[in-house]
């Protein structure tokens, strides 16, 4: 965590110094690597292209590197490098067609680690390495991982490393934790100076959202500022919970929970017992987007939602399009006045958050726009 924070602040400094081109510095490279067939493209499609898990069966093997740019909060563009596990086909295939899987893996390795070494591994913000839990040859995977990490430490020593132990659904439930811990400790021991953050994932449940939400959370540069403002907004509108969603992936980038839900025990505010609610909410909305895209006849990747109101006897909630790249979700106690005032306030706060979202665009009129909170009637 310490290392990550350092990295973030460093990036910020670079970005704010006028001599440097701020845009270029903010383009962080995100490498998505792992053995062929470990599920890299599947998870990328689910998170960023609104596929549902079933749809990923259609995906073929990724040949070469699949570059995609995902526009994000704070003018941050994610450069997602989906490095095909079978990238050798194009690059090495002319000289020799390799058939055995071992040879394939070597060829892929060699390519990344020799000719392409500097091109691929320089200026990396994040490396996400995917391990297939079902892999027969874990030692070989570890070897590959080790050389990748070595290359990374040479060109981008400040990068963050995340390891995803993927396809967890294929393991018998009562063995999952043991196998997972076992693998993680092995991988940790081979990680050089990096301190990888491990996650157990599967595309068939919310664990994938949880992992990616956390990765993205670490990537957003001015997140501490956003979080601070989100907190003060939440307090002002007396919300129980405020959630900030990223536009395309609908992952919860940041959230704030009220500690005003008092119980008889004053020091311990009550919490919603559903601990994985953020991922579940992302999941629900992503599923619903499938239906709405059929309904409106627009592509799945297009924006679908604009306003969602829900008033229940025990709580009320709204979800609105907030800034260019975000949606805002607010959970409130029931009550009309509270609800309407909160909604108006959120719309007023929009301009302020728009600045945080994309500061380069309108830094001039930042001073002019100040949040005014309408008083409760």
């Amino acid at each position, binding site marked *: 965590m310490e290392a990550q924070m350092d990295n973030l602040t460093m990036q910020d400094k670079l970005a704010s110094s006028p001599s440097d081109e701020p845009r270029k510095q903010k383009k962080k490279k995100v490498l998505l690597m792992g053995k062929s067939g470990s599920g890299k493209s599947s998870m990328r499609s689910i998170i960023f292209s609104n596929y*549902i*898990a079933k749809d990923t069966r259609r995906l073929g093997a990724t040949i070469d590197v699949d570059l995609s740019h995902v526009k994000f909060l704070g003018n941050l563009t994610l450069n997602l490098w989906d490095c095909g596990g079978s990238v050798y086909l194009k690059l090495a295939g002319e000289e020799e067609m390799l058939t055995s899987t071992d040879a394939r893996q070597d060829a892929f390795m060699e390519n990344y680690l020799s000719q392409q070494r500097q091109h691929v591994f320089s200026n990396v913000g994040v490396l996400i390495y995917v391990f297939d839990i079902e892999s027969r040859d874990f030692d070989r995977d570890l070897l590959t991982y080790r050389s990748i990490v070595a290359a990374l430490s040479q060109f981008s020593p400040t990068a963050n490393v995340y390891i995803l132990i993927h396809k*967890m*659904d294929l393991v018998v*439930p009562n063995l*999952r934790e043991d196998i997972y811990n076992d693998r993680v400790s092995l991988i940790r021991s081979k990680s050089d100076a990096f301190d990888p953050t491990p996650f157990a994932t*599967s595309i*068939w*449940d*919310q*664990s994938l959202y949880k992992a990616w939400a956390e990765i993205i959370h670490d990537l957003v540069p001015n997140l501490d500022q956003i979080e601070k403002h989100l907190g003060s907004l939440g307090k002002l509108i007396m919300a129980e*919970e405020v959630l900030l969603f990223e536009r395309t992936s609908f992952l919860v980038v940041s959230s704030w929970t009220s500690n*005003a*839900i*008092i*119980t*008889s025990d004053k020091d311990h505010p*009550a919490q*919603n*017992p*559903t601990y*994985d*609610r953020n991922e*579940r*909410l992302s*999941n*629900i*909305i992503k*599923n*619903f987007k499938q*239906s*709405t895209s*059929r*309904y*409106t006849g*627009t592509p799945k990747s*297009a*924006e*679908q*939602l*604009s*306003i*969602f*109101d*829900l*008033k*229940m*006897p*025990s*709580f009320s*909630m709204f979800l609105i*399009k907030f800034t260019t790249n975000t949606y805002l979700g607010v*959970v409130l*106690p*029931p*009550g*009309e*006045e*509270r609800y309407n005032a909160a909604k108006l306030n959120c719309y007023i706060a929009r301009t302020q958050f728009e600045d945080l979202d994309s500061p380069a665009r309108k830094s001039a009129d930042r001073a002019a726009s100040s949040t005014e909170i309408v008083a*409760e009637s």
Partner: protein
Amino acid sequence: MSLLQTGRRRTKLDHSYNDRPRQGPFRHISPAQLSLERVHEQNRLGTPKKDGTKASEQAPGKSAKGKPRLLLMGQRRSGKSSISSVVFHKMPPNETLFLESTARIQKDSMHSFMDFQVWDFPGQVDFMDPSFDLDAIFGEIGALIWVIDAQDDYLEAITRLNGTILNLQPSYPNVNIEVFIHKVDGLSDDYKLDIQRDIMQRIQDELSDHGVENAPINFHLTSIYNHSIFEAFSKVIQKLIPHLSTLENLLNDLCRACRFEKAYLFDVLSKIYIATDASPVDMPSYEICSDYIDVIVDVSEIYGWDRPKEYIKSLEGPPWNKKLEDQTACKDAESAIVLTDGKRPIMLREVNKYLALVAIMCEGSYEKMPTVIMNVEGTVKGLIEVFEITKERR
């Protein structure tokens, strides 16, 4: 507590690692129990009514009197149990692969806006056998649903269906017979219609050969992998609802007053619509409304936890100084959604414990939401009144 707030539903993706084992959806009954029930029912019914005219006189009040019964029949492996699991037990369609074949009659009581029973029959048993008490089975029937596997050879199924109809016609001429031409998801549209035409032709020919004309038979093309099965069930159940026309008129008035494109009255649990306005039903609008209910059920499951009493007390204190119930305008769940194109916003309003009103509005309606809500409020009152009247009669 309403189903919208508590209804547990299994979403398509919602399996956590430590998922609970799948709950068997069926109540298994022993043969002894089954015969007991049969004896009980025979006693209750008293003398079996053989007279056709008498039955027709009682037809309108029939569903109000007891629990209407939906009988699922058809060849073995035609998909009867899968249908009842998907529609009434929220089982994801792909899990029905693991259902075992049904050995004896499975009775499910559905406690919803009206109580009805679903009886799932094993395909291999011939109920025309004299050892079965026909009256116990068909006495209080609401509808007979005959499932035909469209991807299989259906000639035998049709022969058996015809036999059943011919057997039933003399004593129970008012039984609605609904033929589900099932498993049509993999078939092309042309082929589907060909099959439907062929099946209709064969049934009608054989029935008229035996002198039965105009038997009340309806045909539906269904599949558990899309919404068609819910649509078909909606049509079956609508025939069993007393005062359906009153409900429909109420919805028509609402649509006219608010310029709604379409309004559905949904049963939240099964997502069958029990009434809709007069404009034609189109699949996309039904699908979005039913998925919308899912979203609300799921969201309220996450956030509808019991807040501590102290917290609620503080909410009722200054500056509001009002009971929490008095701070809200509507006691039931209310929701609306606007999509980015802004064209057809959707609204939802809880009617009672089991029912929800979902409507597709027209462009610009969201800005006039307060008026819309008032109109909806009036309609909901009307709907509840209609159901009260039905209950009293019972």
